[in-house]
């Protein structure tokens, strides 16, 4: 990072801070001046006016002072005519809450209130949050009322409902009102109506509220509540299935990304590449290096670092793969078991190389802003990085389908997969196809590494943790068939996530492994086996 850039960013930061500080000081003072009026207020009516004034300001900073007032802790210090909050032995500033001095030895005058004023305070307090400018504050205020079913808030809530314009907050407020009504009213019809409003909410909180109500209710409302509980339970069960499917697809897309390169090389060349996991790892480290460069020289474009890392990772790993194929594997064709051992040797060397260069510990790879955070659909929380990885894996799948089905390289790859000798007799340079296939498979693994760096630790052992799972996907899905790999990965992912709640994560994995071992006995060539004379031994 160059020095002028640093200076400029620090400078702008300082300016920004000043600006923010100035603004908050201004706001404090307006709340503060109104609060200080309590010191000179005479009689209940004037105090009431000040309370109303604070309520109209709608600034939550006034809340501590108002609460203190209703508890009788807001007092005037006659020595300098200022208003303070008494908390134990200390005097606090009514706005900032900071300790001003000790209470001992001072004669303080309590600001007196009566019941009508208490109601005004409560209304002002909830109005402050229920009618705040910020939609999030209103939302959380309504949520709090729903959770506590505080009957004292009913009036403020009614007012807020008439004023609310945001539809989702409005329905939340209506549900909050229903929760209050449910606990206060004696009218069965009103109860049933409230139950139906709460039922619309359909989440766990609604469930617990209704369950508590059902336990004490009688007659028709009890039945209505019971019916609502069943409906909510059904709905939650559906969501839970949806959640398992989502997690499963997410896991499946990770498995798919890790396995697809392996499936290509295995399908075309019959070669088990034990160094495949290390290609994934190299892709992740490429991401790390690219991000470091971005952090140093162009932090403003950090969000785009992954877009550059993807092609770079592809190139790096494809090159490594090409060297491996030309340097080692081509001498071992026809000896798949030896190839397996030699590529295992390559994987050890690659691991140790990375460990020597980058150190044995995890390196930090950041999420760009468009990949961090989450959003919610119903009861489902969906994180952006998982969503992007699913999208990315589908994109990889589509691109590979196009390469295999629409390009001449793809045509030749399929020919070699089906019958190598015949393809060779037809003039296909099988050696060249092998080299290109291996480079392609390795490159895809590198791109998978970019994706996995977003959700997993980037360490020299990254590849090791995926290699066995990738094998399982390939042998389960069937060799030389991209659809097989996709279906295999997704079904293994979903199966894993559906088992997990019953058995725990480790046992679920063991069960899936055992299932695959048994499955291979039934269908030794996988789910989508290629049939034909050339394939049988």
């Amino acid at each position, binding site marked *: 990072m160059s020095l002028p850039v640093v200076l400029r960013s620090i400078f702008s930061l300082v300016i920004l801070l000043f600006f923010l500080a100035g603004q908050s000081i201004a706001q404090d003072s307006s709340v503060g001046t109104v609060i200080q009026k309590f010191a000179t207020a005479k009689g209940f009516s004037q105090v009431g006016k000040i309370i109303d004034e604070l309520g109209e300001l709608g600034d939550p900073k006034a809340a501590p002072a108002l609460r203190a007032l209703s508890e009788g802790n807001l007092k005037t210090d006659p020595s300098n005519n200022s208003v303070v909050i008494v908390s134990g032995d200390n005097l606090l500033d009514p706005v900032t809450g900071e300790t001003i001095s000790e209470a001992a030895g001072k004669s303080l005058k309590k600001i007196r209130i009566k019941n009508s004023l208490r109601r005004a305070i409560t209304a002002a307090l909830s109005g402050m949050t229920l009618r705040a400018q910020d939609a999030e504050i209103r939302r959380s205020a309504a949520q709090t009322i729903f959770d506590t079913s505080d009957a004292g808030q009913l009036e403020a809530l009614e007012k807020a409902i008439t004023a609310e314009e945001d539809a989702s907050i409005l329905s939340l407020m209506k549900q909050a009102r229903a929760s209050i009504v449910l606990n206060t009213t004696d009218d069965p019809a009103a109860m049933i109506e409230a139950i139906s409003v709460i039922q619309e909410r359909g989440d766990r909180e609604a469930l617990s509220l209704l369950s508590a109500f059902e336990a004490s209710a009688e007659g028709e409302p009890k039945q209505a509540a019971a019916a609502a509980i069943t409906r909510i339970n059904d709905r939650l069960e559906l969501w839970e299935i949806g959640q398992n499917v989502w997690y499963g697809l997410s896991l499946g897309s990770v498995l798919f990304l890790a396995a697809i390169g392996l499936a290509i090389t295995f399908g075309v060349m019959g070669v088990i590449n034990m160094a495949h996991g290390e290609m994934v790892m190299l892709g992740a480290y490429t991401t790390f290096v690219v991000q470091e460069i971005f952090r140093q020289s162009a932090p403003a474009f950090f969000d785009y670092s992954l877009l550059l890392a993807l092609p770079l990772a592809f190139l790096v790993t494809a090159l490594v793969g090409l060297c491996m194929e030309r340097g080692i594997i081509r001498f071992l064709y026809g000896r798949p078991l030896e190839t397996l051992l030699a590529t295992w040797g*390559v994987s050890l060397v690659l691991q*140790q190389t990375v460990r020597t260069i980058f150190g044995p510990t995890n390196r930090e790879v950041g999420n760009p802003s468009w990949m961090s955070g989450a959003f919610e659909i119903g009861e489902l929380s969906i994180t952006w990085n998982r969503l992007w990885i699913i999208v990315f894996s589908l994109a990889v799948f589509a691109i590979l389908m196009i390469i295999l089905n629409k390009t001449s390289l793809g045509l030749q790859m399929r020919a070699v997969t089906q019958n190598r000798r015949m393809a060779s007799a037809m003039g296909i340079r099988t050696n060249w196809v092998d080299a290109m296939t291996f480079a392609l498979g390795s490159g895809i693994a590198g791109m998978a590494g970019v994706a996995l760096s977003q959700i997993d630790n980037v360490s020299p052992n990254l590849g090791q943790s995926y290699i066995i799972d990738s094998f399982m996907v390939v042998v389960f899905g069937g060799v030389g068939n991209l659809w097989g790999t996709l279906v295999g990965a997704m079904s293994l992912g979903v199966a894993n996530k559906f088992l997990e709640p019953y058995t725990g994560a480790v046992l679920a*994995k063991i069960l899936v*492994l055992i299932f695959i071992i*048994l499955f291979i006995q039934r269908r030794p060539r996988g789910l989508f086996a290629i049939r034909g004379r050339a394939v*049988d*031994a």
Partner: protein
Amino acid sequence: MILTHFLKGGIQSRSVLTMIGLLCVIAILIPIMNLVVPPASPFHVPDHLVPLFGKYLCFAILALALDLVWGYCGILSLGHGAFFALGGYAMGMYLMRQIGARGVYGNPELPDFMVFLNWQELPWYWYGFDQFWFAALMVMLVPGLLAFVFGWFAFRSRVTGVYLSIITQAMTYALLLAFFRNDMGFGGNNGLTDFKDILGFNIAAPETRAALFAASALTLALALLLISSMVSSKYGKILQAVRDAESRTRFLGYRPEKVKLIAFVVSAIVAGIAGALYVPQVGIINPGEFAPANSIEIVVWTAVGGRGTLIGPIIGAVLVNAGKSWFTGVLPEFWLFALGGLFIFVTLFMPKGIVGLAKKLSNFSRPNITTNKPQSSDGAIAKPAE
């Protein structure tokens, strides 16, 4: 009758006979050099080297077991570490029971880790392990049974080549995950350790260690005798026929799945015994032994020495492990480079290993049974030899 047949098969090859003789000699010599020769003498073997050599011999037994299935039957098992570890766990359970009330918690019935996990009584599968004969039986029975069930399923449905390699790897990986779990009752992550006695002798005493070393050497000699007689019998001929042309052997009327199953089970039992000898000498068994990487390392020992030869795996296991001890002492960062390079070098330039190379150099020309033919069972996906 059976014995003479057995011995005749075993001593057919001169190199095997030499190796058996050599093993018997070191079984006596090393303990003497450790216990009797005074420390000042240049012929003295220090205490810490005896279990180390014993460990190498256990690995040699394991490599020999793998050679029976890989070198002579063409089954590349990437899960032999699982059989080794199961044998080791069976022995470890016996040694745990021998600790008795001397554990940290002083519970006469339960091993320490169970007390720690608040278990009230011994799980049923620990019953009987206080008896040595029972543990010794389990050392052979458990790996043998697993190999039988696994092999019966796999060979019957004709899972061959790389598919078989991968599901054996999946098997050891599944066991790795399972043994890491605390509720399995095998000590979880930490495994079984803090052993005190074996058969009433203090496990750390030099005399016990020397005896364990001698036992390892003699077991290796016995295993060599067993396997060499197996491969030179008529059964051994069929075994190699299955390796070279499985379909053809089947068409000739043999049942390759049965032939393979026998070799696989015997190999697993031998691997289990190796594990049982290994555990008291290193003093610990933990789930790390199930790691797929360990099983692949066994393959490289066998490949370095020369697969399909009987003394090759022994030489390979001892050399590679001695190299590992040296490297991890002197240049720890470079061990993986060396091991990885060894994998590549051996598969590219020494397909028949050290023994094959020695044979080539000495122009020893007899009909070779260890030729590396392309495995026809992989023909579906393998590139035919050009």
